[in-house]
């Protein structure tokens, strides 16, 4: 049985992977140690956790515009998340995802996506169709 969460059509390729979830916001500049691939902001709910190859499930963006370059730089060094699943992206996250060809979706029909998916669950994100699939069990 697969649970489907519908959302707005997104950006980037189809990806599957382990979700890393928090009811918190995201900025590559404000929150990450991008050399070591971990959340480095002490106040962030994911502080200390590795984001490499995870699909981040978060609320929205925070802060400034640097994330737009940084996602591309992170992908080039292969120390990047696989994708971003958000309640609401801002312009910078969309621009950064487009530049980096990183998967991004947002605007879910079923409510707060950070409450619908749990850390460790395996999800598949299908941006073109506007869909996230969660295999149960």
């Amino acid at each position, binding site marked *: 049985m697969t649970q489907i969460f519908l959302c707005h059509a997104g950006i980037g390729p189809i990806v599957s992977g382990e979700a890393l979830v928090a009811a918190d916001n995201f900025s590559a500049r404000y929150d990450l140690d991008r050399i070591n691939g971990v959340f480095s902001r002490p106040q962030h709910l994911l502080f200390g956790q590795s984001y490499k190859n995870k699909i981040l499930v978060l609320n929205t963006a925070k802060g*400034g515009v640097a994330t737009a370059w940084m996602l591309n*730089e992170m992908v080039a060094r292969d120390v990047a998340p696989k994708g971003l699943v958000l309640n*609401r992206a801002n312009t910078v996250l969309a621009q950064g995802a487009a530049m980096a060809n990183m998967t991004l979706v947002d605007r879910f029909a079923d409510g707060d996506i950070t409450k619908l998916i749990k850390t460790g669950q395996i999800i598949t994100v299908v941006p073109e169709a506007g869909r996230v699939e969660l295999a149960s069990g």
Partner: protein
Amino acid sequence: MRLTDHEKAMLAGEFGPGIRWAIDHQIKIGNFFDAIDMVPVSQAHMMADAESFGDAGVLFMEAMAEDRTEVAIPMITDPRGVDLSHYHPLGQTEEMASLERRFISACQTIGIMMTNTCINYQTIMPPVLGDHVAYGDTGVVIYANSVCGARSNFEGGPSALAAGLTGRTPRYGLHLDEYRQATRRYRISSQPQELTEWGVLGAVIGQKSGSYWEVPVIEGIDSSPTSDEIKHFGAAMASYGSTPLFHIVSITPEAPTIESVNGSCLPLEIITKDDIEAFRASFPGFGDQLDVVVLAAPQLSLVEMRQVATHCAGRQVKKPLIVCTSPQVYGDATRMGFVEMIEDAGGTVLQGTCFYNQYAREIGEVNGWVNLLSNSAKIVNILGGYGYRPSLASMENCIEAAITGKMA
């Protein structure tokens, strides 16, 4: 998206691979935000520091330059990550400087003017009411939208570049009237008195708003702030809330009345003294464990440079004092003796950079800087993720702390 014949030709590659990348990038963004077409823009401003774009960004820009791509509209830049006249003393490396040099060379080849400033609205060419622009740097965008009445989304570096190359941007978000209406209504209970207090008020409103898609309207501000005061107010709000636009009733151009931004029907939220004090209490005191004092973010105006110089006159700092300004202001501040006054006191004046985007983590580790004091509510928000323990004080108290070696 509906494309003109000219835009279709761009997409078909008739103007070269760089322009094709740019319009394709913009179409992806436009589709994501349901834009129906593009809107011409008069200027582009690109945030790009070496720590952000890295090797991958340099290679990307060098490919643009090799393809003889050229900008279509006036395009300028945000601060650099390395002040090439002063990087060894900060502990920045030749590798960092080399990335900057290569990026600058590629930018100049495609026609970008290296203004290296986040206060272009004070120094270069402020946009005007209704002017569609493509600006990077959140402080620039929120000032342009709110104070000037121009229209820009947050444009990250690649998207600002794309706008510079095509002369347009997808028509979504703050280019549309409906996204410029107020969604949150605040009233303040006490008037901010100096730059840091303005920054704190902006930070509190940004925290409460908490989303790019919220537009605060503020009532209760008695008189027009100065350009520097509203600069700190907006920069902090944008930093804490990812907020790109605010209105102040009877002060900013789109809000002569609360009704003009549809604010009268919104529930009123009071910003209390407790809100302000709780925010300030979230920062630590250092005593004599202070490591470095930074005045930046946004870069200092000529007026601020004069204020810093006046506080420094005839005195000597015991702790590092770093001041960041734009190349445009630096020239005037040098001519007027302000730079010399700061440097005579032992301070360092950097031009064309801003502390947080010049490899803040690396220079902090090299210099042993952890406890950092600033008058910028924006920079103390950013630097927490870079390994610093930042704290906040007025400009006067920051300089006093650098001179006495301890935080009052």
